[in-house]
């Protein structure tokens, strides 16, 4: 009984911390505008939508990975999936949750696009280094 209580409590606390942690990652990138290059590659103009997330992540996988970004992409990817579950379950009962989840998922896409921009710049500098040597 005690173990079950601890499990429920810890999962609730974990969800709260995880959501806030992912939002702290996303918020930092939300101020960064998307470069023209990223807009061209992804086809995203101003407000990224949740539908673009999978495509942007696929594009991310084509670029050389920066080790420090591996964890944050995985965390935001997990957050995106949790929001998807929330959208298809709770949001059917509470409509305001749907618009909130859509907004959050759009920000996840923006985050992924910002990381894509960083990776493109990183690839360019790698290529330039190789050309020099």
């Amino acid at each position, binding site marked *: 009984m005690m*173990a079950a209580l*601890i499990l429920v409590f810890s999962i609730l606390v974990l969800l709260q911390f995880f959501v*806030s942690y992912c939002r702290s990652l996303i918020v*930092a990138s939300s101020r960064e505008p998307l470069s023209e290059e990223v807009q061209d590659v992804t086809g995203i103009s101003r407000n990224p939508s949740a539908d673009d997330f999978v495509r942007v992540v696929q594009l991310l996988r084509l670029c050389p990975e920066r080790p*420090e970004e591996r*964890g944050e992409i995985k965390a935001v990817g997990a957050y995106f999936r949790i929001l998807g579950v929330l959208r298809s379950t709770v949001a059917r009962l509470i409509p305001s949750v749907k618009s909130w989840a859509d907004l959050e998922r759009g920000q996840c896409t923006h985050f992924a696009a910002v990381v894509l921009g960083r990776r493109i710049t990183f690839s360019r500098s790698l290529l330039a280094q190789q050309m020099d040597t």
Partner: protein
Amino acid sequence: MLGPFDYAVWFIGTLCEAAVVVCALRRKALRLYLFVNLYMAASVLLSLARFNVFESYGFSSPQYCYFYYYSDATLTILLYFALTSLFAKVFDEIGADHYVKYGAILLLLGTAIFSYGVVQQSSDKLLTKFVVEMSQNLYFVGMVLTYILWAAIMKLRETRTRLIQLVLALGIYFSLHAADYALRNLYPQMYSVYHVLTPLIGFFLPLAWAYAFWRLPEEARLATSRLAVIPR
């Protein structure tokens, strides 16, 4: 016996812990977050010492068993002080950091007395049982304290991004550990799952802290209202 997976986890885990101290050193944050880095440095040193004891006496030896549990208790106490130092940082601006320090010591003593009360009936290996009990209780106290700290951060509208991420990562780590502990008690037969899951939980904290030191400058700020699970 340990397999290649266990060796890999041991090696990568130690590397991740060392990465935290290196990142903090490179970003000149070693003294700013002294106890956080002290905990990670001690984790690296004790991991190396554990490996030495393991090589000398073997995994099933009482020497390794004792060393493991006593070093684990030491690390838990250091992590508790790291959490206290984060508390002091948050409460520093309202001049309540001294109260936090005294309160933390009192709570540590209280946890020790409670743990002793739980194990005092044991006739043999009293000290070892006390150390294990205290370690488990401190983990749970740590999770509750991190939650209180998060509530204080939201209430006081703390804006330091690095500090916020260090606290959130600690909160995730403690709650993952508590969930792991509860699952082990509820479903002890799923040993093969915990064998993989528990070390993976251990990776999270050093990776998240290394990220916070490496990627976020001390001057970075964000509005805490944007982090609330229920939008304000």
